[in-house]
C-alpha cells in the first residue's frame, strides 16, 4: 500500500532519531529520549529510538536506559558518514514502513539538514527548534497558564485533543507560538541541544531494551553527494551550550578589543571557569569567530551566569540568552535594552568595572 501521510489513524508511537557521529552518540539523544518517554506515557504508546550509521549496533541499549522501549538500528557502510541522500532515504524507508505518530530530531547541523528533507518527502509538517512539547491537553493548559500573559478564562480547549503541541520561539523569542500538525503524520519536531532535560539512567531498563536491526537498501544511484573528509577543528571547541558561566562581549569593547576579550576570559575564570561569547556585531567585525556568537543567528544558551559586557541588548541577542539563570550587564549607556532583562546592571566603563569585579570575586573566594 502506498504511504499516505494523511491516514492519521494508521500512525502510532513516539520516535526519536538518534544522531551519532563516528560512533559517538550526541548528548541531545538522551535529552530527547527522556522527553519522548514523557510524551509516550501521556499518549499511552511506545517510545522508539532510531540510530543510523555503520558498526553502531552496540549503541542501542543505552537509549533503553533513558526510557526507550525499543531501538531500531540501520547499519550500512554507506551510512558511515552523514549524507542527506543516504540518511533521508533510509530514515524515510523505515518511517514509511512502520508509521510513527511523532518523530523528534535533535537540531544539530545535521538534524536540521535531515529533518526538513524527510518532512517534505513524507508530505508532513515539521516544526523547528521546539522548546516545549505536550500531548496531553491538561499539561498544555497548565503550561500556557504559567508561561504566558494570555487570558484563558474565555478559551475553550478540546481536552481530548491528542495532537502534539509544539511550542517554539519566533521573532527572536519575542513571540512564542504553539504549532500543531493536525492533518498529517508523522508529526515532526526538531529540538535544540540543551533544551530538554536528560532523565535518570537505569541499568535495568537498558538491559530490557529491545533492539531491532532494520534492513538497509541503498545503492550507488541513491548517493548524489560524497564526503571527501571530515575535519575536527584543532582549535578549542567553544562550548557555549554546555557552559555554566558565559561572559560575552559586544561593541563596547571596540576601543581595546584585545583587552576586552582578555578581561572577559579573566572574569569567566574568576567565576570558576567559563566560556567567552560574543554578540553578532563582534562576530561580524571579526573580533571573535562565529562559534562564539550568542543570539538568534548564533547559539541559544542557558548558563547559570551570563555576563554581558558592552552589549546593547538588541532583541536578536536577547533571544539567545534571556533564559539564563542569572544575568549581569555592564554597559556605558544606562538606557541600553540589555538592562531590561538583566538581574543586576551596572552602568559604567567595562574596562574599569570588570577589573574591579575580578578583584572582588577573587577576594571573596580567597576568604572562603
Amino acid at each position, binding site marked *: 500500500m502506498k504511504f499516505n501521510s494523511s491516514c492519521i489513524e494508521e500512525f502510532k508511537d513516539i520516535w526519536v532519531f538518534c544522531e551519532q557521529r563516528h560512533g559517538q552518540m550526541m548528548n541531545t539523544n538522551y535529552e530527547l529520549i527522556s522527553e519522548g518517554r514523557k510524551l509516550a506515557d501521556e499518549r499511552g504508546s511506545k517510545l522508539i529510538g532510531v540510530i543510523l550509521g555503520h558498526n553502531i549496533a552496540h549503541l542501542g541499549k543505552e537509549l533503553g536506559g533513558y526510557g526507550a522501549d525499543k531501538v531500531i538500528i540501520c547499519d550500512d557502510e554507506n551510512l558511515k558518514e552523514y549524507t542527506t541522500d543516504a540518511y533521508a532515504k533510509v530514515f524515510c524507508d523505515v518511517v514509511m514502513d512502520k508509521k510513527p505518530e511523532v518523530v523528534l530530531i535533535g537540531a544539530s547541523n545535521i538534524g536540521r539538514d535531515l529533518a526538513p528533507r524527510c*518532512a517534505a518527502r513524507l508530505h508532513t509538517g515539521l516544526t523547528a527548534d521546539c522548546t516545549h512539547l505536550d500531548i496531553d491537553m491538561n499539561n498544555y493548559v497548565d503550561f500556557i497558564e504559567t508561561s504566558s500573559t494570555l487570558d484563558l478564562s474565555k478559551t475553550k480547549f478540546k481536552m481530548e485533543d491528542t495532537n502534539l*503541541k509544539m511550542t517554539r520561539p519566533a521573532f527572536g523569542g519575542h513571540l512564542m507560538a504553539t*504549532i500543531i500538525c493536525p492533518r498529517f503524520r508523522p508529526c515532526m519536531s526538531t529540538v535544540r541541544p540543551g533544551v530538554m532535560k536528560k532523565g535518570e539512567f537505569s541499568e535495568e531498563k537498558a538491559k530490557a531494551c529491545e533492539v531491532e536491526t532494520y534492513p538497509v537498501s541503498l545503492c550507488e544511484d541513491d548517493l548524489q553527494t560524497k564526503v*571527501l573528509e571530515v575535519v575536527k577543528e584543532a582549535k578549542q571547541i567553544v562550548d557555549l551550550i554546555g557552559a555554566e558561566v558565559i561572559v560575552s562581549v559586544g561593541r563596547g569593547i571596540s576601543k581595546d578589543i584585545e583587552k576586552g576579550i582578555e578581561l572577559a576570559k579573566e572574569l569567566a575564570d574568576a567565576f570558576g571557569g567559563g566560556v567567552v561569547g560574543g554578540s553578532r556585531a563582534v*562576530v561580524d567585525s571579526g573580533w571573535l569567530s562565529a562559534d562564539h556568537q550568542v543570539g538568534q543567528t548564533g547559539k541559544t544558551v542557558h548558563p*547559570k551566569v551570563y555576563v554581558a559586557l558592552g552589549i546593547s541588548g538588541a532583541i536578536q541577542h536577547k533571544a539567545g540568552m534571556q533564559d539564563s539563570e542569572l544575568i549581569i550587564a555592564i554597559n556605558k549607556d544606562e538606557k541600553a*535594552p540589555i538592562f531590561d532583562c538583566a538581574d543586576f546592571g*551596572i552602568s*559604567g566603563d567595562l574596562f574599569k568595572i570588570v577589573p574591579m569585579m575580578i578583584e572582588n570575586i577573587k577576594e571573596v573566594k580567597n576568604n572562603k
Partner: protein
Amino acid sequence: MRIYVCVKQVPDTSGKVAVNPDGTLNRGSMSTIINPDDMIAIEQALKLKDELGCGVTAITMGPPQAEKMLREILAMGADDGVLISSREFGGSDTFATSQIIAAAITHLGISDEDIIFCGRQAIDGDTAQVGPQIAEKLNIPQVTYAATIKKEDKKLAIKRMLEDGYMMVEVKTPCLITCVKEDNILPRYMTINGIMECYKKPLTVLDFEALKEEPLIDIDTIGLKGSPTNIFKSFTPPQKGVGIMLEGDGKEAVAQLTSKLEKLHVI
C-alpha cells in the same frame, strides 16, 4: 549555467520590536532588510559569477514591496529578478512555501550546471527548512551549512560546517546549497553603477495564474489552508522581571554586586 538565489525580506529585529496589543508582531512598524543569511548566499553567488561569468537570478516569494529588495540585489550585481507573489500563496508554512518556490524554479527552467543558493535560515521564522524542502521537491541533492564553494568541472567541492569542525563534500549539479557566515565572506554593497542599471534589468512577477499549471502547484497544498502545520496559539512570554541597577560609582556598584552574588551563592 545559471545560479538562482532564494532570498527573503524580513523585519529588522536588530532594532526595537513592536508588538500589537493582541500579541502579534507589528510588522508595519519595523523596517525591512534582506535576511542576513541570504546576504551571504547572494555574495557566494556573485563571487561565482565573478569567477565563471554565469547569470544570477534573485528569486523571492513575498508581497509586492519585495520588488524593492530584488532591485537592490540587482544593484549588487544579479542579472534578473523574480517575484513570486499572489494572494493564494499567503499564509504558507515552510512546506507550502518550498513547494511554490520549487514550482517557480521548474517554470523558469533548471539545467545540469545550475546551482540554487539559499541562506541557512530567516530571522523571522528561524526554521532553516525552506532550502532543504525546495531541494526535495526538485529532487536534487542539498548541502547545508556551506561555508566555501568551489566549482570543479561538473561538480562542486563544498566545505560544510559542523559544530566542531567541517566536512569536505563533493556534489553534482544541479544542487541546492544553504549558506552560513564563515571564513570572512563579506556581503558586498550595491554600486552606484549598479543602482543606475537595476531598474533596467528584467524583473518577472509570477502569480498563481502564471504557475497554476505546474504539477507542484495544487490549490490544496498551498497557502494557509494547504500548509501541514498551523499555529494553534501564539503569545508573548512574560517579561523577565526588571532587575536592579546598582548605583553609586564604579567601586561601590561592584562591591554591591559582589555581595549580592555571594548571598546568592553564585561565588
